[in-house]
């Protein structure tokens, strides 16, 4: 099982493909990219040692084509496949197919993906291994009496959820025993009419929780370590927007307990490689297992910066069958890292995707900034894939310092051609709740409105007006100049008066 990986096919695109290629270059590993029609000029195809076309833009016809990707890996003599995140990364059949083709899958065993992908199975495993889960019924409840007894056992507030359902149908928060009967009856009626099944589950309702997750690494020799937490509570519609490490509310003792729980979660499913155990944290800082992501996370860079570790490098070492480099007590955290996800979305217009060509793309220079991106100036952002085009990550001495650095990095970023979430990220970095560390997953609904976005100052407006007049005047001179007559007039106009100051 001890192999030496020399060539990796990256079954992904965009910033994460670029990210994986960077580590491979440092390790001297040859990289093979695969790309769809829409990505033929994309940065990751240019950075890879080789790049091959695999199909038209829709993922189903390119990045999700398991056989084509495996065939390409075999044809180009790769040893291994790195799936990135999304696409095929949490597809157990793909993990199996890769291995059956004699290739190394840089990720967990198929069975671990399968177990953690099944919410009921995952919950059972967690309970069996002492990982705290949200208190609730394990089986569907059919009578009112059973429901009330359970709710009282769990303690209010509770959440009633339709057993059959999804999409919030039949879901109801109940705060006291008096509300219970009416609430459960209403839920069951809704569930029956929506799904033809009136059974419900009851679980503890976590009001305004924080979302905090633990990074783990597990090797093939039974060693499992954790690399502290990532605070991911700034979310929009359950999509993380801003992440940081460490969390403002996690102290050493809580980190140790959450870390132990995450290591147990990994052991519970026989996990190998890099993974993330997500928790909800309530206002008393009690934490409950939410789910496990059996792959590299989008937000892995904040952990890399504060622990000075390269998670992709560790993934590759683990896939090679090597022992973990570090034991739990050798791990040292240093400083504070924040990541802002940059998406082509119109913050002023309900975060609708914004497509177009990046007429300008000038990242900030000078501060210690890490920019993980899949695009450059001139690139097109299309509707085919995720609107996230990059991640801006800063490392500060402490949380305050990191916030200041992020603020200026965002301010110095110049993008034109698409709308981006940068104005929103600036809003967060300047909001007292974020700065104080007192926030939860409801941050956006509680605090954000488009009127609070920073707008240009009066001086900036005035500068824009002056610049526009000067540009128009220049433009007119050029027009004159290009005409058949007036050429001399145009030229002398460009040389005289305020124009002289331009040189």
């Amino acid at each position: 099982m001890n192999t030496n990986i020399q060539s990796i096919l990256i079954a992904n695109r965009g910033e994460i493909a670029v990210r994986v290629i960077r580590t491979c270059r440092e390790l001297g590993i040859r990289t093979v990219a695969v790309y769809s029609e829409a990505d033929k000029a994309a940065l990751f195809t240019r950075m890879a040692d080789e790049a091959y076309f695999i199909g038209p833009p829709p993922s189903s016809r390119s990045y999700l084509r398991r056989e084509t990707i495996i065939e390409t890996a075999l044809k180009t003599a790769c040893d291994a496949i790195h799936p990135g995140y999304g696409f095929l990364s949490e597809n157990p059949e793909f993990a199996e197919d890769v291995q059956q083709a004699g290739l190394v899958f840089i990720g967990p065993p198929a069975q671990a993906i399968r177990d953690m992908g099944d919410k009921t199975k995952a919950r059972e495993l967690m309970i069996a291994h002492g990982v705290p889960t949200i208190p609730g019924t394990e089986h569907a409840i059919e009578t009112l009496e059973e429901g009330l007894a359970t709710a009282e056992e769990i303690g209010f507030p509770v959440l009633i959820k339709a057993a059959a359902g999804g999409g919030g149908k039949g879901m109801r928060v109940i705060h006291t025993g008096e509300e219970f009967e009416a609430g459960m009856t209403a839920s069951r009626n809704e569930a029956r009419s929506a799904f033809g099944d009136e059974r419900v589950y009851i679980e503890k309702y976590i009001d305004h929780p924080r979302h905090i997750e633990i990074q783990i690494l597990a090797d093939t020799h039974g060693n499992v370590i954790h690399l502290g937490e990532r605070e991911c509570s700034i979310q929009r519609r359950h999509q993380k927007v801003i992440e940081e490490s460490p969390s403002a509310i996690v102290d050493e003792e809580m980190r140790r307990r959450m870390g132990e729980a995450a290591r147990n979660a990994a052991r519970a499913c026989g996990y190998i490689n890099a993974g993330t155990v997500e928790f909800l944290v309530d206002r008393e800082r009690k934490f409950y297992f939410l789910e496990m992501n059996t792959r590299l996370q989008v937000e892995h860079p904040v952990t890399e910066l504060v622990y000075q570790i390269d998670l992709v490098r560790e993934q590759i070492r683990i896939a090679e069958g090597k022992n973990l480099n570090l034991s739990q007590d050798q791990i040292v955290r240093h400083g504070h890292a924040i990541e802002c996800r940059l998406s082509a979305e119109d913050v002023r217009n309900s975060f609708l995707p914004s497509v177009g060509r990046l007429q300008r793309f000038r990242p900030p220079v000078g501060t210690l900034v890490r920019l993980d991106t899949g695009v450059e100036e001139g690139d097109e952002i299309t509707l085919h894939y995720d609107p996230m085009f990059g991640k801006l990550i800063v490392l500060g001495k402490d949380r305050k310092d990191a916030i200041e650095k992020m603020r200026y990095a965002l301010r110095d970023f110049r993008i034109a051609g698409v709308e981006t979430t940068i104005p929103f990220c600036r809003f967060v970095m300047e909001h007292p709740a974020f700065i104080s560390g007192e926030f939860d997953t409801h941050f956006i609904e509680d605090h954000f409105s488009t009127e609070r976005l920073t707008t240009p100052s009066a001086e900036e407006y005035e500068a824009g007006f002056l610049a526009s007049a000067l540009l128009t005047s220049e433009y007119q001179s050029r027009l004159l100049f290009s005409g058949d007559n007036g050429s001399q007039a145009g030229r002398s106009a460009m040389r005289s008066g305020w124009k002289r100051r331009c040189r």
Partner: protein
Amino acid sequence: MKKFAVSSADRTSEIQLFSNGRITIDGKEKEVEWIALSSTRRVLRVNGRSFDIDVLSVSRGGNVHVLVNGFPLEISVKDERSLLLHQFGFGGSLHQQAGEVKAPMPGLITKVLVKPGDVVQTGQGVIVLEAMKMENELTAPADGTVKAVHVREREAVDKNAILIELE
């Protein structure tokens, strides 16, 4: 001396550029330095304060699109002559021969906004041409119907190439 009426969505100003280099905005004189870093990047220094200007587009019709310290601003600029022409309904048609849209400079077609058979009105955007890293929206010189589109997106064109014919 040139006089411009400058406006954005919610504010408006009058700017005067004097041939001796003086500049006033709403009658107040400003000490202005205007430095070209490249064809699309400028620095404007007003009374010692610098503003970072990215020029995104400057159109024939007096529409300027810039980033000021990264903030996008769309600004309309009218000089006395264009104000006058506008009153008489000559707007954008001055330099364009009715019946066709030509490339005013060499560049890259980044967007074609119409197709044969489309009905267009005077001043309506029909094509976007990128040149010197700026996007320029070219407009229909007259009301009519699109007869032919001679270019497609990502095509490089030379100055005076006929891009679109109207009838």
